[in-house]
């Protein structure tokens, strides 16, 4: 005889909703000045969370504009962008949205970049983005959003 553990009813005040069901639709902002890179990141995300909504921005300016207009839950920001680097943008996003999960996408990680990312509370995702590389961040972000809203 085999049965799955039942979903939690109510334990210590935190949500009774099962995270793994993930039927809450989230909106993810993908910021990269390369269209190709945005497609790659979008595909990886769709493998993990097919129902989630994607919003793309090709520059830091466009990203700031979208975050003002739309309800964005999560941001994936490429580090290496021409006008403004991803960390500067992440810092501005953090100021606007203190609780938003933010990840920096980068191919090579220097210690100085790591330190700056830690300061703004951003995670790292290796470039090119794969669903494997993205899954930890997405799981954590889903949990965090659920906990902060409940």
């Amino acid at each position, binding site marked *: 005889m085999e049965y799955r553990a039942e979903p939690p009813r109510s*334990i*210590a005040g*935190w949500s009774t909703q099962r995270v793994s069901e993930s039927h809450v639709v989230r909106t993810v902002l993908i910021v990269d000045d390369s269209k190709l890179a945005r497609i790659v990141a979008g595909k990886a995300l769709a493998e993990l969370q097919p129902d989630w909504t994607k919003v793309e921005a090709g520059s830091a300016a466009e990203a700031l504009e979208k975050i003002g207009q739309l309800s964005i839950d999560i941001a994936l920001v490429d580090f290496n962008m021409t006008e403004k680097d991803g960390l500067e943008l992440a810092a501005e996003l953090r100021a606007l949205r203190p609780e938003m*999960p933010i*990840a920096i996408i980068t191919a090579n*990680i220097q*210690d100085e970049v*790591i*330190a700056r990312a*830690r300061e703004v*509370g*951003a*995670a*790292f995702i290796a470039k090119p983005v794969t669903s494997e590389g993205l899954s*930890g*961040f*997405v*799981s*954590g*972000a889903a*949990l*965090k959003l659920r*906990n902060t809203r409940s």
Partner: protein
Amino acid sequence: MDELLEQFLLEGRDLIVEAHRALDVLALNPGDTAAVDSLFRATHTLKGSVALFDMAPAETVLHAAETRLVGVRRSGMSTDPELHAALVATIDQVDRWIDALEAGGLPDGAAGLGEQLSQALSSAEAVVHLPKREEEEDPAWLVQLRARAMLRNRLADATTAFRYTPDSDCFFRGDDPLSLIAAVPELIAVAIVPNTDWPSLETIDPFRCIVSIDGLSGAGIEAVQAAFRLVPDQIVIAPLGSSAHAPQRLMDFGAETTLRVDSNSLDRLARQAGELTVARSGLKTLAARADAIDSSLAQDLRRAEAAIEQASSALSHSISAIRRVSLAPTLRRMPRLARELAESLGKDIGFSLVGDSVRADKQIADMLFEPLLHLLRNAIDHGVETPEARIAAGKSAKAQVALQIAIEGDRLIATMSDDGRGIDPTLVRAGAVEKALIEADAALTLSDVQAQRLIFLPGFSTAAEVSTVSGRGVGMDAVLRAIERLQGTIDIHSEPGAGTRFHISLPVNAITTRLLTVVSGGTTYGLRLDQIVETTRIDADAITMVGQGQVCMIRDRVLPVMDLAQLLGQPGETSDIARLVVTEVTGESVALRVRALGERIDAMVRARSGLLASVPAVGGTSVLADGSVLIVLDLPELLA
């Protein structure tokens, strides 16, 4: 030998190697703190070990060295050339004293020498300032870590300790601390501890990280840092330098997982495995005989024989693996000898040794030292020019001599190279002609590469130019012979003016074959023992002519008799007593008549090559201890 002494000789020499490795690093980078730590550890442990024996001078010098090293570590200074030289001299001297202890005891005058070395150590300056170490004492976390039950017994194996304190909401950021831990190189053990007491399950928040991870790694601090570079704000890492807390290695038998086996037992085991192979072949004979009586019994016998063959070949493989030892103990004297040789010859050399931890069959390891040492002598004595000559030739005054060992497939490759004057084929040709080793016109027909190989001829290098160093009456021919005994090859790549490289290729596994030597027609041959059913002597009169051939009766069976000498195109045997070797390799029993039966030997048989490749009956060759070449006959081919 006294068990304690035996253990000391092993470990003491390991520590000498460790110390030299650190000194090599410090020669290039005088400020390498990890190397200072490693040198300190080796010196400290050695000091503790020598105190157990009658080696007071060694204890004195090691104490002086340790004192200096403590100063270096404390002040964050580096070792300057003078101190470095004094440390090298100290470790070399302790190495010699260990040799002396093994031979019976320290020589007279050791105490005086010890005093001198201690003087040199304490007067040498250490002047270059380095960034100061942050903590003199262990920080609190490291003290806690050292005390953890999970870790304290493993400290001796560890190089680096770390404490990783993930922040409580790291899971939300996508971090998985455990996957970072799993990626730490050479992880030895970890302890997972709650930041406060463990909460009850009823109050625990499963998505808050509430633990820290303390761990030990055998890797260096940089490698461990690299594993945690994404979480620099949550990690503290420290090298486990000081051995004050580490248990004494010498007496620490309890933790040992390796078993030291007397090499004679291992040789015996290998020989017995070889005998098993031979004995197995008897089953083949039985199966053939059983065929006449009961073919299903014969089938079963063949199946049993196949199973035994499989098991015995697995056994041989395991034995080969056990027999593979690190070359480090064999090669550990090389750097010291290189320094001593260079000094005595007025040469300025840098010697580098790469790959000394490569593993090879014990026999290879044991026999490799002499030829390599000879090549080293040759390189320093003949290959490398004096500093003046080098400068005149537009080279750096310091010559480079390098020994590199590597494994390529099932071959061990050893390369001894120098950037000296190279081997001039013209001079070699002239020298060989002058020593009447080769005719003048024959010398001219040789290619340059062939001419360079003339140095391997016996008598080539034992003449006038032999110095006290390369001398000892041995020439390069001895090197060639030694390499060939190991079934290896040696090539020369030399460019006049630019340098020489000797390239040695040897089998990693010594695959010995049991042979029976027999004499036939005045020549000694080897026969594979597993191809022989029995040997016997009968009256020559008992051999009778039947048709074109001869037959005899052995154990109620009629066997054809063939004369080995005649098979090889020589006159047959004529003695009154016929000595016979019975073989069944062709599916039927055949008695081979030989002049004399020799001994059973274990030899490495090299596949036939060169000229012999075209002779069908020759299965291979083996070089015997006296340097002579034994031709191993291939009976199936000979009798086919």
